[in-house]
């Protein structure tokens, strides 16, 4: 059930109506409803994996209680590591076991041994990386005393599997989300409408930009050896826009959906293309994942008196893990490493970049030269990473880069689409105007007369109806 499907529209309308018709004093009934809805939503992908989700939820719930009630530090540690090992073990099995087998066989082959090992036929449970991290964050927060273990299983289970964030995040932390689930929510007209606006913008980005980019990107990346250098460069930029609008579109829809139910999820994207340097660009992309790593790896490891070398080492480590988190591919690991290099480089030269930053702080209506240079650099860096991110192995990545450098002539790229270029420009323009707000459409149109504002929303919807591609694409981040 995709957010951009009729099925979801019907599903959500039903849940929304029932949810708000339950009196707010009956918060528990509402949470039970959301819990069932979340499991139903998940079962639409593969009902068998509901049991895995349930097992993971029970494990972390019980671990949390055992850690909280443990009589000694050793016991606390023991329960913490049990939870970590089982959670990570599941993740390793479903996501990485074939990668390790393949890599081991490759290594032995390189050393001259002939080995034939069959990989396992494993189906990756959708959203496993996301809900595993939800569970782990809870157990870690309880262990470090930052959050009191909950004794309410329904609330905890809903924290893990709340349907807007279940499949592709944002990755929530218990101190932010669980108290919201526990508390009662009064119906707030403005909040609901605001949620609708955020959903609308996410939907626009997904169905208009991401899904229209997808077929062109597929054609370019599937056969890079047959494309010209200009086409390959165009393909890399196009994929950058696709992955951004796909994932940030999903996040906007998730946040909008949750807000309509009175729950605020964590912001996941903050117009990264308009960042002032690469370090900030990375920090504005998939914020919930970088926050997770910051809280649970970087902060515990780095003290106030830690050396710069140690800090950079941990930045490197986090990006390495972050790359690997995306999936069992060497290309993802390289994406992590190169992103780390970009960030460290940006941090080292930040002194000179500060001037640009200071200029960009102004809420200018039209982008300055400094802004345009920064946007160009961000886009170029992101497109280099996109080539690695999109190709399934290093060989194909090599072919892609080889094509760029050996077949680069001044010529118009193949598959260029003028309407799509216009739509991307339109999307970036709107995002520019909404870049300082909580979400893009939060304030745009708020001062306008009702008819004009409604007209703007109707135009967005009609553009979607007119230019939505005939084939729907699943969200890219569902595979992680």
């Amino acid at each position, binding site marked *: 059930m995709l957010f951009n499907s*009729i099925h979801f529209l019907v599903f959500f309308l039903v849940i929304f109506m029932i949810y708000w018709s339950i009196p707010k004093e009956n918060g528990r009934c509402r949470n039970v409803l959301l819990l069932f809805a979340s499991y139903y939503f998940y079962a639409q992908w593969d009902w068998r994996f509901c049991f895995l989700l349930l097992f993971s939820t029970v494990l972390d719930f019980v671990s949390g209680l055992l850690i909280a009630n443990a009589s000694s530090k050793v016991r606390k540690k023991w329960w913490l590591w049990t939870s970590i090992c089982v959670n990570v073990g599941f993740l390793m099995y479903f996501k990485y076991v074939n990668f390790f087998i393949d890599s081991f066989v490759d290594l032995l082959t390189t050393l001259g041994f002939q080995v034939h090992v069959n990989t396992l036929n494993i189906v990756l449970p959708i959203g496993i990386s996301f809900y595993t991290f939800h569970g782990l964050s809870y157990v870690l927060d309880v262990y470090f005393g930052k959050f009191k273990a909950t004794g309410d299983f329904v609330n905890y289970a809903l924290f893990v599997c709340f349907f807007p964030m279940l499949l592709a995040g944002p990755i929530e932390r218990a101190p932010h989300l669980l108290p919201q689930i526990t508390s009662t929510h009064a119906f707030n*007209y403005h909040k609901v*409408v605001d949620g609708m606006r955020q959903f609308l913008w996410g939907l626009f980005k997904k169905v208009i930009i991401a899904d229209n980019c997808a077929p062109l990107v597929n054609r370019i990346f599937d056969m890079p050896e047959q494309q010209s250098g200009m086409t390959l460069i165009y393909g890399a930029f196009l994929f950058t826009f696709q992955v951004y609008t796909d994932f940030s579109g999903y996040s906007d829809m998730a946040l909008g959906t949750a807000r309509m139910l009175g729950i605020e999820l964590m912001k996941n994207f903050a117009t990264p293309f308009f960042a002032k340097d690469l370090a900030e660009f990375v920090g504005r992309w998939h914020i919930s994942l970088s926050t997770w790593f910051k809280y649970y790896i970087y902060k515990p490891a780095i003290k106030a008196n830690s050396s710069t070398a140690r800090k950079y080492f941990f930045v490197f480590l986090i990006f390495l893990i972050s790359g690997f988190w995306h999936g069992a591919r060497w290309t993802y690991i390289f994406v992590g490493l190169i992103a780390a290099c970009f960030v460290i480089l940006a941090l080292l030269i930040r002194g000179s970049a500060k001037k640009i930053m200071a200029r960009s702080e102004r809420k200018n209506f039209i982008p300055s030269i400094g802004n345009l240079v920064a946007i160009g650099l961000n886009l170029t860096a992101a497109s280099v990473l996109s080539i690695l991110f999109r190709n399934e192995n290093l060989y194909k990545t090599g072919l892609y880069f080889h094509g760029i450098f050996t077949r680069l002539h001044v010529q118009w790229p193949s598959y260029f689409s003028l309407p799509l270029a216009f739509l991307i420009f339109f999307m970036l323009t709107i995002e520019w105007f909404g870049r300082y707000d909580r979400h893009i459409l939060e304030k745009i149109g708020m001062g306008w007369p009702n008819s004009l504002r409604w007209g703007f*929303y109707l135009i967005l919807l009609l553009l979607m109806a007119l230019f939505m591609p005939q084939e*729907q694409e699943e969200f890219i981040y569902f595979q992680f």
Partner: protein
Amino acid sequence: MKKLVFRFACFVSLFVALYLLSTIVIYYSPLQFLKTNIPNRKYKSAGFTARRLAEADTTRQVDVLILGSSLAYRNYDTRVFDSVGYKVFTLGTSSQKPSTTYILAKRYVNQMKPRLVILDVNPLLLLRDRPIDVVDILLNSSSSIYDLELIWRETSVMSINAFLLKSLGLTHSEIIEKKEQRNTINGDEYIKGGYVFTDTTNITNTFGLNKELIAQKPTNLQMRSLSCLIDYLETQNINFLLVQSPFNSSVLDFLHLDREKAIQMGENYFAHLGHYVDANNKLDFPKTSFRDVLHLNGKGAEQFSEFLLPIVKEQIGGE
């Protein structure tokens, strides 16, 4: 809440009115770049869909029902089966995907009560979710509850628009095939039982296939639908065969695919689903047996149907 419901209802009504109006205006306008999701006003089915569906509506009790894409209605000569006493109906539309085949099976299997269902399968039809087959069916069939199921499963704006235009009665008079009621169009002849006969050979048309297609993976929707289709036939206790029709060496050359690899691909996708017959293991037709790069002509279809006859007899028992 009341304010929200009222304003939301107003907004949705306004949108629906505007949407309908713009759909109709664009439908009648010459602005092609706005018609990505709006059916062509001069819509004409490629394979007698209106005729076939009209005949399907009145057909009862068949021995063999053949489901699939245009390969189903061009490659299986119903007259060959007819000559040995089997009543056969080929129910296919151009580019018909498993998701559409599943709905058609639900619509017609109970009515036709076949003793055997042949599912004409092809890996290329698993790679895309394009709604052209759904639009073809919606525009060429009598209205039924299954129209809604087609739209529900497809969820493409193009299908919704086709349904709306059909419901508003704006498409019916435009269907040339229905209006003219001819048995022969552009060298294709409609034969009773859904078969489309052609005796020409022209292998230059590549049907918009692109070389990159072969690098793509099957879509989740099509793989799920194929499983649902098999489950449905099994729960109805209907015997079924999965058959891959002969492929033209021209299409393999075009896709840079060797024959063994193509056969292996079919095995990987379909062999585990049930009794799978790949005609390419036994037959290797010359290019003169093909109508185009994908479909057999009359001569090829006759030979292929004769090849299948003993297998069909074995499945349902010969009289």
